[in-house]
């Protein structure tokens, strides 16, 4: 997986691009960015925390180590997007579902660029356990890209950042 800073910046830049191309279309920035961040927050974060606990000697059932994986595969992304979209008012559900799911799929697309020694991602789980990854970049390649992305993203969204800063003052 790429880090959440990289994922978040790419999601924000995509939405800035959409806004530039279709200024009148509803942005749904929050849903798209949330969708982009949720696969790691729901799948990786708890798994990492329980792995840390296991490494320190705590008994952790295997389900708590590996059971979060479906949040990071397409089938789980569809179900998660559907569940979350149904929490919104009916008029917004379709747009929220689309933005959540497209954010999640963008997340997966970025992760697929990485190489994990062939372990890859189970794109068709639970129908198939065949892993897939493109393996075009190393698993830590985004570390050097992230600072640059933060600067570019802050520049692209400078109007909102300035407005938020003025509100705070």
């Amino acid at each position: 997986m790429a880090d959440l800073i990289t994922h978040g910046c790419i999601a924000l830049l995509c939405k800035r691009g959409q806004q530039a191309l279709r200024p009148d279309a509803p942005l749904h920035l929050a849903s798209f960015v949330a969708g982009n961040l949720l696969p790691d927050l729901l799948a990786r974060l708890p798994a990492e925390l329980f792995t840390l606990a296991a490494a320190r000697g705590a008994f952790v059932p295997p389900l708590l180590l590996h059971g979060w994986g479906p949040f990071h595969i397409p089938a789980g992304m569809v179900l998660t997007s559907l569940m979350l979209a149904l929490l919104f008012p009916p008029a917004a559900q379709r747009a929220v579902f689309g933005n959540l799911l497209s954010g999640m799929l963008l997340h997966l697309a970025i992760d697929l660029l990485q190489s994990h020694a062939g372990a890859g991602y189970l794109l068709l789980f639970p129908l198939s356990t065949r892993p897939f990854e493109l393996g075009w970049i190393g698993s830590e390649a985004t570390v050097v890209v992230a600072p640059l992305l933060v600067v570019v993203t802050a520049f692209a969204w400078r109007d909102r950042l300035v407005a938020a800063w003025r509100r705070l003052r």
Partner: protein
Amino acid sequence: MVLDRVRVPVIVACLLAMGWMGWEATRFAETRSVGIRAALRDPPAFDGAEVLLMMWTVQAVDPAGWVAEKYGRTVAVRGGCEGLRPGQTVTATGRFRADGPAVDATWCEVHHWRRAKQGLGVLGALLALATLPWAFRIEGGRLVERG
């Protein structure tokens, strides 16, 4: 969406489906043929099998090889990487040996930027957990996007 009228049963069904997939994912992770966990549970059955140690931590280094650790489990590894230090994160492939048990590594990669990536990951997670709740509000018992 038309599903709104039956949203509670739909959400419950989705949660059950996610739970079942989580169970299946766990079963797969514990038994996949390239996984070291299955090999460590039944060493004779996996003697000579190719295994993958994905993002394991170097626990100790000795002249004969090194000890990898993950999920509280450890395995001895022979060969693969030169100049390893305890605490480094490594991905390795190799042949599993039932006597030991141990792994004869044929390929190995040290993740030198792992700590930096973990740092970015933690920072990103904290930022996300701090900002995402602000991006939504509750109105009439429903979530609404801000902005």
